[in-house]
């Protein structure tokens, strides 16, 4: 736990976080032994069905919910013991406005700067830069209340960055946004990561996650069921099998020969997981039937997610249930 020198490149390290709500019969384990690591400039998409424990985990990382067991390090500091750790984190929380409704965008930026120990002048300067970067300069004098939902969300992200944190927590940042606003938020997330900030992002829009993330962690019933680089995970679930669609009827001889190659036939489709060269052998066996389609299966994050989340439920851990540690 007391590692000698924290790696400056690691923005977040969460180790075996556990959280149960309620007591006695109403006790409910929301998060079990979740560990996450994010490096500077990385985007980790944290995915899972509703109620899987994403928000709980995010709030434990931000010091807003105390874990029963496990620990969090933000750039080497524990937010539950060292308040200074909070200088390293910015958060846009789910279902919250995260902004002062009566203040204008620059006023919000300046106030939140003060709240996070940024000197006033610096907060104002950074505020201007952020407003420009986020395309909010024309709305300088409009109270947040009168901004569109998309602009409010952009501003909430800008405000979470005014103290230049090493880690940004985004819980459902594109929820309730129209397509265009979602796209802008996506582009911003990419820019923020490129500037070296680590990002932990939850979303139900798997296309957004696939486009943005370097890594994916999938959580289900409080447990991480997969954690890998995004492309590797998708690759793993893409079985690279060929699918062939044809017209007409196969003779029994053709059927046997195809089966002998290890392919499976269902009506007018063949699934074949062999090498690209032996594919030609198979295709020649189909002569002279007309071919309608030859394609290779490639999964996307949605396929991966659905497969992982629909698996039969993991066994209850046999370890004793966690108790609060103090």
């Amino acid at each position, binding site marked *: 736990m007391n590692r000698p020198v924290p790696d400056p490149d690691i923005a977040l390290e969460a180790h075996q976080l556990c959280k149960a709500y309620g007591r006695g019969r109403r006790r409910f384990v929301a998060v079990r032994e979740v560990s996450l690591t994010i490096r500077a400039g990385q985007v980790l998409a944290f995915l899972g069905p509703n109620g899987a424990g994403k928000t709980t985990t995010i709030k434990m990382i931000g010091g807003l919910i105390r874990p029963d067991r496990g620990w969090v390090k933000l750039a080497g500091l524990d937010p539950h013991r060292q308040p200074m750790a*909070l200088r390293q984190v910015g958060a846009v929380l789910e279902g919250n406005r995260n902004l*002062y409704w009566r203040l204008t965008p620059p006023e919000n930026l300046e106030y939140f700067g003060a709240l996070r120990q940024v000197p006033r002048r610096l907060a104002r300067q950074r505020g201007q830069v952020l407003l420009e970067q986020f395309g909010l300069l024309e709305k300088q004098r409009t109270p947040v209340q009168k901004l569109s939902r998309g602009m409010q969300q952009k501003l909430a992200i800008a405000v979470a960055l005014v103290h230049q944190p090493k880690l940004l927590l985004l819980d459902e940042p594109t929820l309730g946004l129209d397509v265009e606003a979602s796209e802008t938020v996506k582009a911003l997330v990419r820019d923020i990561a490129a500037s070296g900030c680590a990002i932990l992002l939850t979303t139900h829009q798997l296309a957004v996650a696939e486009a943005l993330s370097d890594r994916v962690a999938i959580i289900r019933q409080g447990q991480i069921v997969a954690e890998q680089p995004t492309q590797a995970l998708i690759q793993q679930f893409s079985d690279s099998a060929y699918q062939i669609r044809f017209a007409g009827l196969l003779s029994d001889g053709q059927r046997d020969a195809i089966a002998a190659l290890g392919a499976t036939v269902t009506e007018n489709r063949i699934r074949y997981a062999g090498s690209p060269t032996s594919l030609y052998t198979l295709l020649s066996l189909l002569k002279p039937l007309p071919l309608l389609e030859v394609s290779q299966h490639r999964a996307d994050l949605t396929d991966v997610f659905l497969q992982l989340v629909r698996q039969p439920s993991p066994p209850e851990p046999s370890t004793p249930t966690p108790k609060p540690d103090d």
Partner: protein
Amino acid sequence: MINLLMGEFKRTWIQFLRYPAEVIGGVIIITSVFYGLFISAQYMAGPAIAFGDRLDAIVVGYVLWTLVIFIVNDVATNLQLEAQTGTLEQVFLSPFGASRVFLARAIASLGLRLTLILTILLIIMGITGSRIQFPLALVLPLVTLLLAAYGLAFVMGACALIFKRVQQVLGIFQFALLFLLAAPTEDWRGPARAFANGLPMIPSTGLLRDLMARGAGLDWGQMGVAIANGLLYFALGMVVFGWAERQAKRRGTLGGY
């Protein structure tokens, strides 16, 4: 910390000014109350709070009474408002820690309110030609009174964190405060007096009454008691609030789940 305080002043001020209808409403209420006080001062047999029957005493007593109520409710009201508007968790993300942020806020909103009240008072005094005296010796017991009041404010804030809905509690508390502040405890003797010295704000209000209504000098022994009382309740408030914060973080109810 100064930076935070400035930030809070600015935020409070802007939020206050941006909606003129509320400002005007507030100013009208305060002005009419004071105007009523000034007009009826000579007919009054003595205000509820029994600071004496001189105009100074009535006005100062009234101002104090409203300020104390305002302060005691301030942290809890602020917490509930922020929970509704969805900014509360952002406050708890501050490296300053929630107690310091809420203290800065309470000071800022008190500053705003005081400015408003004093401005209106000055205007009314200009119109009516009435004068009130504010003896400087009042400052010390005032500070200890405010300390204890802020302590209670944090206790109420702790209730708001744990129980979420505290409107009724605040209302009942207001009555308790009225009795507490009006009881002439400085006349009590023996164990009753010792007991009164342990109640929040009582030593300070007793001193204020002595100074204002009875024209007595500052009793330094009693002042020491008032200082101890103020510090004690302030510390108590901070401790209880810190405890409530930890409870809420344990239950995961900070944002108002």
